């Protein structure tokens, strides 16, 4: 019999336990982390529940700009006054990881109840997500929004209370409305009112192009106390496109009358190529030359090296009061104002336009710049939501006239609902619903011409080559390579026929399996889609190709020009009218 130490009996279980831990440390560590995570998630989700709340709804978005989270918190509070049982919690996710986050949450079945749509995944993937993981909202957007009661919008279908008729929320591929938009966006110019006054003596920024340029020149000629010159316009690779898009490209609108062969009111990249190839239009077209002359005049007011700078660098220059003007979207307006608060007074203005009698541009600027009213900041309801009726009700609250007005007033954005008043700050951002638009899609026919254009355009922007040299290098390349790229674009369109047939087979089956009024409605939809996607799809292309094959027609009557035959008919009619009523 061996002698035992008195404490040996007590130590044995301890040793055994320690031995077990040593042997299975990795496994136990994983188990502990799992338990901790589960507990943390549970506590995190519970923490958002205020007392009395029975339903928790989570709303996810990527808007980390100033004001958005505060606005949601405030609206959640307002909503709780009406529905004490519902608590709203935000999941604010950074843009950079939004796509990954969205994918993992949806696939894991742990997604937030309401999710902002439109970032992080390609469109085709987004379509898949919308159909698998989100609830169709069509019946609800066709019914009145109860939160509009007592307003002029009472009784109207919800979608008709939107300024854009909820156009962007309808997903044609799925034949459903799937998202609820909550704001509109616009782009305008911000300016440092104090600096403008100090450097130019002007209280307001000039809206007329020449006066604006003169103000820029005056600013550029001045130096600060350290001898550094001021920059009239803070720009960057991000901002330059805004100036081009709102001021220079609209000058090209006149090309519609020359090469909009299918008369759909816009110039397609295929139409423009055929126009170039057949001599109907070219880089010597007055409006096209005007676009680049104006662009040269504007980029001369940007800081040196702007094409190599990012958005933040331009904003920094403006915030540091080294520049007077900066273009910005409503999404940045709140942050920019926050930076200026207490430091300098900020003004907001529309992009300057040339006067009708401007000797250089007046003849080409036919009107204000058209801005399509499109609502964004769109939210869908996840199928995994346990209380979809409550989520829908909250979105109705935010998408009502009063709710939308309040939400956007806090953020500093434009309301998406008709009649919702706009805060004075963003009034200047309200879109122009009538006007001209760019008609020079010379950079998007195919891969090679697009890259070549980008290279040459970048050199033009920084004044390394002039318009003539840019054209001399690009035009022959475009005319030669464009033929193959146009053919490839047509082939790509044909390749998508199988996808369309697949889609139509699904729509047809829905019609076959429906009955009564629903069947009638679905068959109409099927026929409309079949007509658009299969029967008429390639007809325009065939006509365009025919025009291309016919060769040069530099003096041909443009699609919006009166032919001698039409003029003769009008003359004939007027003569006949005079005979009837002398």
């Amino acid at each position, binding site marked *: 019999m061996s002698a035992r130490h008195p404490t040996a009996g007590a130590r044995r279980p301890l040793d055994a336990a320690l031995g077990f831990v040593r042997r299975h440390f990795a496994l136990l560590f994983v188990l502990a982390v799992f338990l901790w995570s589960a507990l943390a998630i549970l506590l995190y989700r519970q923490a958002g529940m205020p007392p009395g709340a029975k339903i928790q709804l989570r709303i996810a978005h990527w808007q980390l700009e100033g004001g958005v989270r505060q606005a949601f918190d405030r609206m959640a509070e307002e909503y709780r006054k009406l529905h004490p049982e519902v608590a709203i919690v935000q999941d604010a996710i950074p843009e950079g990881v939004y796509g990954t986050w969205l994918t993992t949450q949806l696939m894991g079945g742990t997604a937030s109840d309401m999710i902002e749509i439109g970032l992080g995944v390609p469109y085709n993937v987004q379509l898949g997500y919308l159909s698998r993981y989100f609830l169709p909202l069509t019946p609800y957007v066709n019914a009145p929004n109860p939160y509009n009661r007592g307003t002029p919008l009472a009784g109207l279908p919800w979608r008709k209370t939107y300024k854009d008729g909820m156009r962007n929320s309808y997903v044609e591929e799925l034949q459903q409305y799937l998202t609820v938009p909550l704001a509109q966006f616009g782009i305008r110019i911000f300016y440092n009112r104090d600096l403008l006054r100090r450097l130019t003596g002007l209280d307001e920024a000039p809206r007329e192009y020449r006066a604006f340029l003169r103000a820029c020149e005056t600013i550029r000629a001045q130096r600060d106390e350290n001898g550094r010159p001021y920059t009239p316009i803070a720009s960057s690779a991000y901002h330059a496109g805004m100036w081009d898009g709102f001021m220079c490209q609209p000058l090209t609108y006149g090309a519609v009358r020359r090469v909009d062969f299918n008369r759909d009111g816009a110039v397609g990249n295929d139409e423009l190529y055929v126009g170039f190839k057949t001599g109907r239009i070219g880089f010597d077209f007055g409006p096209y030359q005007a676009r680049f002359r104006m662009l040269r005049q504007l980029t001369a007011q940007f800081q040196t090296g702007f094409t190599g700078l990012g958005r933040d660098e331009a904003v920094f220059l403006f915030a540091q009061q080294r520049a007077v003007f900066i273009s910005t979207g409503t999404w940045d307006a709140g942050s920019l104002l926050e930076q200026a608060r207490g430091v300098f007074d900020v003004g907001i203005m529309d992009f300057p336009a040339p006067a009708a009698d401007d000797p250089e541009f007046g003849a080409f600027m036919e009107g204000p710049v058209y801005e399509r009213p499109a609502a964004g900041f769109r939210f869908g309801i996840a199928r995994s939501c346990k209380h979809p009726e409550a989520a829908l009700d909250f979105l109705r609250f935010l998408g009502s006239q009063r709710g939308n007005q309040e939400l956007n007033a806090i953020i500093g954005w434009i309301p998406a609902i008709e009649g919702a008043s706009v805060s004075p700050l963003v009034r200047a951002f309200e879109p122009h619903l009538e006007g001209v638009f760019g008609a020079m899609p010379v950079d998007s026919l195919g891969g090679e011409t697009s890259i070549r254009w980008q290279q040459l355009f970048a050199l033009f922007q920084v004044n390394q080559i002039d318009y003539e040299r840019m054209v001399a290098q690009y035009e022959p390349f475009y005319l030669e390579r464009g033929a193959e790229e146009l053919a490839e674009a047509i082939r790509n369109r044909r390749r998508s026929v199988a996808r369309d047939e697949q889609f139509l087979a699904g729509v047809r089956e829905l019609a076959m399996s429906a009955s009564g009024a629903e069947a009638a409605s679905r*068959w109409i939809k099927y026929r409309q889609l079949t007509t658009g996607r299969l029967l008429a799809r390639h007809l325009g292309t*065939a006509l365009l190709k025919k025009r291309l094959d016919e060769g040069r027609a530099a003096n041909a009557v443009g699609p919006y020009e009166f032919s001698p035959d039409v003029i003769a008919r009008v003359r004939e009619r007027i003569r006949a009218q005079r005979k009837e009523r002398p």
Partner: protein
Amino acid sequence: MFAHWGLALLGAIVLGGFVSGCRRARPPMEPAVAIRAGWEQFRLGEFGQARKNFETAAAAAPQGSPEHLAALYGLATTWNLQRPGEDPAQAERLYRELIARDATNDLAAWSWLALARMKSLPVAGETPPLEPQVQAYQEALERFPFHPAGEEAFLCQQAARLDQPDETRTREALNALKTFLRTHPQSPWRSAAYALAGHCCAILGLKEERLEAALQAWKTAETDPADPSQDLSWIYWQIATLAEFEVGDFDMAREYYRKLIAEYPTEQRVFLAKQELKRMDELEAQIREEEP
């Protein structure tokens, strides 16, 4: 002692995992349910799952029954249109099996159309030869001249002719469309037929007929009150521009430009429409001045 308990605990966790991971035996799916699920999966792009559902339904349904035919049709359509992994030979075999089982069935008509459409699918983006397409559509429309599938086959046949247009083919298509419009006064495809006829007229330079076809296409267009996305702005625009620039009928042009402006005030073409109204006034004023 702890080691034993620990191992027992781990064993229990692992066993629990196994048990929870085991799939419960599911009751066999009813054919109708499986077919519905198959189409749902098809629309979601889950073609493997769709095929499984259709195969389940085909196996469970009595041979030649409506469910069996529906399952065959679903399976054939999936093999035909799934991308990637399509199997046209298998699809054709299944469509023909369906037709052989019940040649007068509704789905037989759609199968004939599908067989013809298979001949129209571009290969590597290139248009397939015209004649086999025309013949295949002819087979479908001769068998079902007044069935929606037969009518669709007819329109597809004319669209195929217009895809590679020359004057002879275009005249053939236009004559065929005129006959169709005469013999099918109740067809819901009339608007599409008028649209194709209008395209023929564009190729042949028949301006008045083109405008008339556009007007008829609009008048016979089906409108679905349940569909909120109906947009007629393009049709108004098309009629107005044809009337103005092809026919010189300024009164009609004005009427349709004004409709566009009134009904779609935020549409991109509104500014252009207003410009055109002004241009027509100016041209008329100029001619009045010139006329003695």
